[in-house]
């Protein structure tokens, strides 16, 4: 009922109860770089939001170990359904940083054409499915994609991320149940960060753990230290292998903490003790991994500084490019509703163009999300 917490790296970077997975040195450093880039993007994006340069942001600080670690266990042909707090997945799967910035700015070069709030990424080339705001809807879809993989007899898996709040939603239950019944190659990764905006975990569930819920759906439930990237990777790798071998889904609970606010519009001081953050700061996933890599002599302070400088330069360049791009053309408002515009959309587009031409409607500044 209450699985043990799997840990590879102790909080001080020393070896813990489980042995580290076999990972090539280069891959470990890439994993570290993506975690650092994700954190630095977070720090910068919050500033951009405060400066009014982007409208909104959802920070993932503190959760780099859980989402980057889990995604690290996937192959190129596998599919991932992230939540809106998993930007490192896109970076790990090779999406250039500038494409994330184009999305946050909603520019003409945004592959999703400025249609969603920042951080709701979608990258077909990375098999990273368009992110939604409604909670838990992606869980059932991931189960469906995994069912399709099984129907087509392709050895791929679908992995979905969601938070602890999502486990209260009907789609969590439904997705887990369908994946269980059809033995679908699906990996459910709950990043249990303790808080669904202001409501703590004990306000979401009376279960002793999230992992315990797996039993009811006939699948294994694993509980890992979500701030230990190698533990998350190991657990996910096992789940992926199990799924590929035709043994069905797994639920992984990555126990972590949301260090920042829910979003750029949230103030956590209203509902939680800042001392809690201080306690979790000591468990920082990036610091912990850095200590681990230094202990194994795979990373030096100098190399670390170089990695950080390169990330900084990449972020600076991406922001410059996104800020040069400008908004999408007005006509794109009417594209992609359907495969072809309906007569009604053609008529509405023509009327709007005409209103713009006559100056009745102005293409105003987007402004910030107020809530």
């Amino acid at each position, binding site marked *: 009922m209450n699985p043990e917490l799997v840990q590879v790296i102790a909080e001080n970077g020393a070896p813990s109860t489980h042995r580290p997975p076999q990972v090539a040195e280069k891959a470990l450093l890439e994993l570290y770089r993506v975690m650092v880039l994700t954190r630095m993007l977070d720090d910068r994006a919050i500033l951009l939001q405060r400066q009014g340069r982007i409208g909104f942001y959802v920070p993932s600080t503190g959760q780099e170990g859980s989402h980057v670690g889990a995604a690290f266990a996937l192959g190129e042909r596998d599919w991932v359904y992230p939540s809106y707090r998993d930007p490192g997945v896109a970076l790990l799967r090779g999406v250039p940083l500038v494409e994330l910035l184009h999305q946050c700015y909603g520019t003409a070069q945004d592959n999703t054409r400025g249609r969603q709030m920042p951080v709701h990424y979608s990258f077909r080339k990375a098999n990273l499915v368009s992110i939604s705001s*409604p909670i838990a809807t992606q869980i059932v879809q991931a*189960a469906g994609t995994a069912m399709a993989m099984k129907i087509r007899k392709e050895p791929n898996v679908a992995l979905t991320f969601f938070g602890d709040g999502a486990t209260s939603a009907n789609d969590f239950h439904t997705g887990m149940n369908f994946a269980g019944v059809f033995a679908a190659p699906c990996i459910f990764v709950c990043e249990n960060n303790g808080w669904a905006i202001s409501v703590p975990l004990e306000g979401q569930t009376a279960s002793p753990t999230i992992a315990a819920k797996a039993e009811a759906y006939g699948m294994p439930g694993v509980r890992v230290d979500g701030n230990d990237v190698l533990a998350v990777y190991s657990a996910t790798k096992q789940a992926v292998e199990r799924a590929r071998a035709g043994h069905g889904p797994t639920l992984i609970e990555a126990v972590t903490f949301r260090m920042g606010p829910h979003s750029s519009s949230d103030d956590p001081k209203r509902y939680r003790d800042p001392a809690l953050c201080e306690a979790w700061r000591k468990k920082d996933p990036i610091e912990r991994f850095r200590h681990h890599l230094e202990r194994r002599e795979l990373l030096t302070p100098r190399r670390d500084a170089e990695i950080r400088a390169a990330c900084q330069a990449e972020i600076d360049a991406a922001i410059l490019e996104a800020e040069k791009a400008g908004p999408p053309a007005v006509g794109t408002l009417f594209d992609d509703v359907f495969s072809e515009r309906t007569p009604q959309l053609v008529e509405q587009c023509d009327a709007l163009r005409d209103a713009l031409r006559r100056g009745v409607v102005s293409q105003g500044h987007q402004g910030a999300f107020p809530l």
Partner: protein
Amino acid sequence: MPVMTMVQAINDALRLEMRRDDRVVVLGEDVGLNGGVFRCTEGLFQEFGGDRVLDTPLAESGIIGTAIGMALYGLVPVPEIQFSDFIYPAFDQIVSEAAKLRYRSGAEFTVPMTIRTPVGGGIRGGHYHSQSPETYFTHTPGLKVVVPSSPSDAKGLLLASIRDPDPVLFLEPKAIYRAPKEEVAEGDFTVPLGKARIVRGGRDVTLIAWGAMVDRCQKAAEQCAQEDLDCEVIDVRTLVPLDEATILESVKKTGRVVIVYEAPRTSGFGGEISAILAEKVIEYLEAPIVRVTGFDTPFPYTLESVYLPEPGRIREAVQQVARF
């Protein structure tokens, strides 16, 4: 040509398309071994097996949510919701996900899925086996809404829907599932989405309807013909995309309009058609537009026949606009 019921025509279309395209899968409650509670999927499980005809757990959001995941991955799912009255647990997946994925992903992710579900009254089904929920869905950009009114149209429109690259809600009027029968062409044919059908030509009054109400309008038109009132009956066929041109052309000719739908009156799709007519052809109108509809009450059990638009009510509305 064989004579078929709408159920048989739907079954024929599904079998034909599953033979033609191995990406097509059917899923839903009791659609497998049992062949669906209305028998629309009869024999498909036996022919195509459990990988392509899936009996699912009893959860509508699961049926639609997993179908979306299948469609994103490259399958062409045709999920069935046993009664449209039970579709609401899947409302979020339909409205927030299926309808928006193409738009929100810049067309990188699309959902070529056709949701089949029975609608409407006339089978003594009470609240939860009789409603007409089309308006909830016509108000959602990104979703096509199709309602056949005859067996032949059901086959052609269903084949067009399954082949359509966008999500389609295919509403099957269960009152006319088993009667009337008509000749349905064998083999492959489609009826394009977005084209209304003039069921009966006429010069005096335009009757606009869809689904099971088309037949009732025809009956009313026949009665009116005896009184020398010549009605044109239009079957809208697809509410989204709507064929405004056919409707506008007819109304320009007759100047008199009756719109018939069995859903509750307020905010029904006929209100939208009425607004379009007021915006675009008001100068042609010789009389106020009249709607004959269900009432703004939950769908009743015992009093079903007086709730539904009867040919008598339709006929009276025609006389009212003709005499105005």
